[in-house]
């Protein structure tokens, strides 16, 4: 390839990325709508908060599954790590929420960084098993070290007001939801920036064809480790938020069903365009609320049925429905996908 061509290509890619990085009006409407819901439904603050945190968790999975194409069946590992880090910190007298949030994300990121090399070998099946194995081991670790984690009883703790001003526990459900919203928005904006950066583009190359990406000089290993670490930090932040706003942690955070649920959320909303996790999480939480109000014991059945139908009917086709809908409303916004 001659030099002017390369320059021209670089310029065009830069222009393309720049175009994609701009915020579209449907996105702005989306975020304002979420904020409006928080203020419009004060009696539902707890469930809104849960949906926001689940959205952050699903966003974290989207970073590895949607953007990079790395499957994981053990993402709960990082949720649990973040939650327990924040909880242990708070129950030892350091009750500041932001400190706990940072620690939760940091601990999860470190473990993510350490375990990421395990994902570089083998196929999808190996990755599913390794991630599952890691989450189970961490759960067992939490179970066995009761002196730190409270074992099967979990931990109850109190949390200081946010910034010393706003209580975020049972006495401040609205504040808790706003706290989660703020964290989600900041982390989402960061993820969005990441996805529309050259780094994000290289992740897409790895997802589409790792061999070819390698031949083009895009090495997969370091990028996978990097994005996995970031995703782990996001999940850790989600765990810390969950722990702080409910003021309780239990071993169930490491459970297999957490990993399966978050996968389902992401699949419902559609993977790969970042909003999928948020939409899916909201749909999942609302569905669960409605169904379990009707048949509390058997709501899993409907989730399972939804999964089976989703897969048989073609996950991709259904998942692209919201995107097509947006494309219908605002053709320009999604011509090349939002992210």
């Amino acid at each position, binding site marked *: 390839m001659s030099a002017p061509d390369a320059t021209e290509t670089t310029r065009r890619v830069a222009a393309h990325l720049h175009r994609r990085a701009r915020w579209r009006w449907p996105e702005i409407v989306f975020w304002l709508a979420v904020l409006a819901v928080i203020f419009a439904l004060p009696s539902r603050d707890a469930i809104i908060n849960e949906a926001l945190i689940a959205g952050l968790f699903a966003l974290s999975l989207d970073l590895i599954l949607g953007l990079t194409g790395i499957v994981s069946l053990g993402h709960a590992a990082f949720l649990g790590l973040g939650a327990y880090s924040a909880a242990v910190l708070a129950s030892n007298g350091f009750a500041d929420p932001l400190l706990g949030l940072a620690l939760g994300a940091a601990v999860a990121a470190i473990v993510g960084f350490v375990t990421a090399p395990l994902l570089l*070998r083998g196929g999808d099946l190996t990755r599913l098993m390794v991630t599952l194995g890691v989450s189970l081991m961490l759960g067992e670790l939490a179970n066995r070290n009761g002196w730190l984690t409270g074992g099967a009883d979990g931990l109850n703790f109190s949390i200081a007001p946010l910034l010393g001003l706003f209580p975020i526990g049972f006495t401040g459900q609205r504040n808790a939801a706003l706290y989660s919203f703020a964290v989600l928005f900041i982390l989402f904006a960061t993820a969005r920036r990441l996805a529309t950066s050259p780094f994000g583009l290289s992740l897409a190359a790895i997802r589409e064809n790792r061999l070819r990406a390698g031949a083009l000089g895009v090495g997969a290993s370091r990028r996978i480790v990097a994005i996995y670490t970031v995703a782990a930090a996001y999940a850790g932040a989600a765990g810390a938020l969950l722990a702080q706003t409910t003021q309780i942690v239990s071993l169930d955070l490491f459970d297999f069903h957490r990993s399966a649920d978050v996968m389902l959320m992401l699949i419902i909303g559609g993977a790969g365009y970042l909003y999928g996790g948020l939409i899916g999480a909201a749909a999942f939480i609302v569905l669960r609320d409605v169904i379990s109000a009707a048949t509390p*014991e*058997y709501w899993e059945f409907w*989730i399972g049925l939804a999964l089976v139908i989703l897969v048989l009917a073609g996950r991709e086709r259904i998942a692209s429905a919201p995107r097509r809908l947006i494309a219908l409303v605002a053709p320009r916004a999604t011509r090349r996908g939002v992210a």
Partner: protein
Amino acid sequence: MLTILLDGVAYGMLLFVLSSGLSVTLGLMNFINLAHGAFAMIGGYATALLMNRAGVPFLATLPAAFVIPAILGVVLERTLYRRLYGASPLDQVLFSIGLVLMAMPIAAYLIGDEPQQVHLPTWLSGRIELGGVGIGVYRLFIIVVCGAIAAALQMFLIKTRFGAQLRASVDDARVAQGLGINVDRIFAIVFAVGSGLAGLGGALSADVVGGIDPSFPVKFLVTFLIVVTIGGANGIIGALIGSLLLGVLDVAGKYYAPSIGAFIIYGVMVVTLIVRPQGLFARGDTP
């Protein structure tokens, strides 16, 4: 010491029967069937309910524990599973998790949450001394039955025409198809037998695990996957050695080092995956 070893072997044998179907379907169809445990649960329920509600003797229920899941397996294979053979691992995992999530509430709805106990006949309970080593009669029974099943499966694979066709299909389904082997039919039969064996394993394990309850498919899902991971997904021998290794390690670990408990098997799995992603006893190719 020897007692623990034998207990471990018995547990490993159980794991083998429970998971052999999984390792063959995985090797043959590259299908990740996380719903395998649901078939084991159905087998366990068949035995428990036939004994408790219809008064059928234990041994007489075992054929039912094999046949019912096998029939269900072949029906599901023909209607649903086969659509996903070419699908991505993620789709297969999601689909089979969906089946598990459906199976558990159905079981809870039809049968109830409380564990269904299998009361062993008197000639199978108690302990005997074998050359100075004490062992539960039922453990011995499991070793004998499951050992016979393993031997029969291996003979079947090595000696019969169907076994040869099956091995050829596992090696390369496309070439086997080209040679005129009806791979489709082999898939269906193997799926049925695998589901049936899972059911039989579920029935045999009911006493060991303290009864069958609706959470059975999830409780043992991880164990199955570990067996398959360690043994590799390509054959009876690998699955058998993997199961035995896991059974002995698990029982010995719980006895000698209860404080680290389940770590041992998870640790073995992760180490295996790092060192040999295709399984300890598989041939060279990656899964």
